[in-house]
């Protein structure tokens, strides 16, 4: 632990208010030096979200890649990416409350479900179920706001307890909420039956049909891809802003040492309440979009009881594998969890021990690997995939020196 961070920090420590020796060439020369210590001439530059050329470069490359990708992917891969984007929004939300604020929640699936059915209520057009048939510009924000309000309201219960007890309380929420979903059939359609979700019609543009987007002719799936890509980028940027602000610091302080945090002027109960509300907002947005991964249908059973618990745990896995208390880790974790089954399926083709005639089924192997990865990350790299990325980055920063 010590050596790992120590190798990264000296490089950046002499940074801040130092005047660069050659004023104007500071930017170019730092790029030549492969992201070596930055010399900032003002605090704003140091505090910027992408405060090094390397970060800007990587983010730019990733973005360009994601923009051209759907024109080269087949339908099922495009769908997989859409799922990554939507799940990533939920993972960011869980990371805010659990990774940053340290409040482990098993109730995330409830808030996702609440978002899903709130969206269906405001946007649903199926005459058999409750639905106002409003535009996505209304139903999507509502899908976040309603869970946020519920999260805000139940947080005082949850913030009285911590650790294992908190997990149990949030689990209780999941089961109570699940019961509500299953019983409220005029809204949810009931277990195993479900209902149609709100159609993704944003400002009158139906994203579930093929058509032009910004002048380019696209399939429905490509249009959904870009729509959800925009949403996840906005979600990530806003979350990053939050976490670098006083709110994010207060979350971390409450997580690390709650008494000291309070002595510094951080109100415990209200901070935890904000964390739950904001996290639930993200969960709700994820829920509002989740029907886009399941053919436009919603079934309450997926958010209730054991299925709901499995969904919550899946999101916890994204946070743990991606890296707690990192936004980019949430994105990596979501990608990892969504791509893992596809990877296992592909491997199963070549390994005879896997598959219907072999030792394990694909599904079993998937579950086993899931568990193995969670345990492995917890033990070997608690900072998750984000931590692995840091290691690689620091290795190259210091290359050819080992330290």
């Amino acid at each position, binding site marked *: 632990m010590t050596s790992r961070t120590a190798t990264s920090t000296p490089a950046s420590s002499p940074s*801040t208010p130092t005047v660069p020796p050659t004023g104007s060439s500071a930017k170019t020369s730092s790029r030549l030096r492969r992201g070596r210590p930055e010399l900032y001439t003002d605090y704003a530059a140091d505090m910027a979200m992408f405060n090094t050329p390397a970060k800007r470069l990587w983010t730019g490359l990733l973005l360009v890649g994601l923009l051209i990708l759907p024109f080269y992917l087949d339908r099922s891969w495009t769908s997989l990416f859409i799922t990554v984007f939507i799940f990533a929004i939920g993972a960011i939300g869980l990371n805010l409350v659990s990774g940053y604020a340290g409040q482990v929640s098993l109730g995330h699936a409830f808030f996702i479900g609440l978002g899903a059915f709130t969206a269906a209520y405001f946007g649903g057009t199926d005459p058999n179920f409750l639905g106002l048939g409003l535009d996505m510009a209304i139903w999507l924000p509502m899908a976040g706001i309603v869970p946020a309000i519920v999260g805000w309201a139940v947080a005082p219960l949850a913030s009285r307890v911590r650790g294992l007890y908190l997990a149990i309380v949030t689990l209780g929420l999941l089961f109570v909420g699940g019961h509500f979903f299953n019983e409220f059939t005029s809204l949810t359609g009931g277990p195993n039956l479900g209902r149609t979700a709100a159609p993704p019609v944003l400002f009158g543009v139906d994203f579930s049909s093929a058509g032009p987007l910004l002048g380019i002719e696209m399939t429905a799936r490509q249009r959904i891809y870009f729509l959800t890509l925009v949403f996840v980028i906005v979600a990530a940027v806003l979350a990053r*802003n939050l976490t670098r*602000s006083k709110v994010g610091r207060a979350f971390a302080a409450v997580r690390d040492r709650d008494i000291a945090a309070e002595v*510094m002027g951080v109100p415990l109960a209200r901070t935890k309440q904000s964390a739950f509300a904001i996290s639930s907002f993200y969960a709700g947005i994820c829920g509002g979009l989740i029907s886009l991964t399941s053919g436009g249908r919603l079934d309450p059973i997926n958010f209730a009881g054991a299925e709901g618990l499995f969904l919550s745990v899946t999101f916890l896995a994204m946070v743990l594998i991606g890296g707690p208390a990192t936004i980019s880790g949430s994105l990596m974790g979501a990608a990892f969890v969504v791509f893992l089954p596809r990877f296992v399926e592909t491997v199963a083709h070549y390994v005879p021990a896997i598959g219907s005639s072999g030792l394990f089924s694909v599904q079993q192997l998937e579950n086993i690997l899931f568990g193995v990865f969670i345990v492995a990350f917890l033990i070997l790299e608690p900072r998750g995939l984000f931590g692995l990325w840091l290691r690689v980055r620091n290795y190259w920063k210091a290359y050819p020196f080992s330290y």
Partner: protein
Amino acid sequence: MAMIRTLSEALTGTSVDLAPGAKVLEVADLELSFGGTQAIDGVSFDVDRGELFAIIGPNGAGKTSIFNCLSGVYRPQAGTISYLGDDLLGHRPHAVAERGIARMFQNIELFDNLTVLDNLMLGRHLHLDYSTFSAIVYHGRAKQRELTNRRIVEDIIDFLEIEAFRKFPGGMLPYGVKKRVELGRALAMEPKLLLLDEPVAGMNVEETEDMARFILDIRAELDLTMILVEHDMGLVMDLADRILAVDFGRPLALGTPREVQGDPAVIAAYLGETDEDAAPLDAAAGPAADQTSL
């Protein structure tokens, strides 16, 4: 490029307006017990504006418990605490912090996963007056407030000479630096009353002298009222205006260093504890030159 400012230019909120004769803090008949142990047993004292008041006593005497009552972490069973004319009892710690009381902890309570910068910025939490919504957008007010407060934090970093550790996580710092960052975090709160719980415990001579220098500088520059709990008698005798000695939660003596030093009850308490003579109670020549820990 920000100009390097002095501490008093950066922290302007530490001054206290008081009517003549009024006290910053008045504690009367404080009682606190945990089950069978009486941690505080009838302690009373008051602290003047700009005073450096020290509390001494053997291990387990109840010094930290007094701090915990002042900062709202413990709720005493009886007694009153009046701070700038305001009743402190029954307030949560964050509400006490809002009233301008900051604190350093005996067992370091830094946020291990936050950088030194963020730890200090956390000290500015109450001065960052922007909404959560503004934080999410991170434009205008939030950005501007972060920037001006970052500048103040940088002044504190300069003052404490911890520039090299700016981006180190709190948990990775050497012990002496941790103590400095804790002092800085408390200072960042721009308090009107600063509680220092054993600021030099476990430090070597050099680190102790640095810390003493910081405390003296803070006094000189900010005219800040402070309460110091410390086992290092040399330091206490040199720095304190008045001293309260406690043992088993009970007050033994209260007065100037010279008075307390010669008090038979105090000498007896320390003799009983250490089985040595009372020599360590003699004030040493330079600041903190006497390393004898009681």
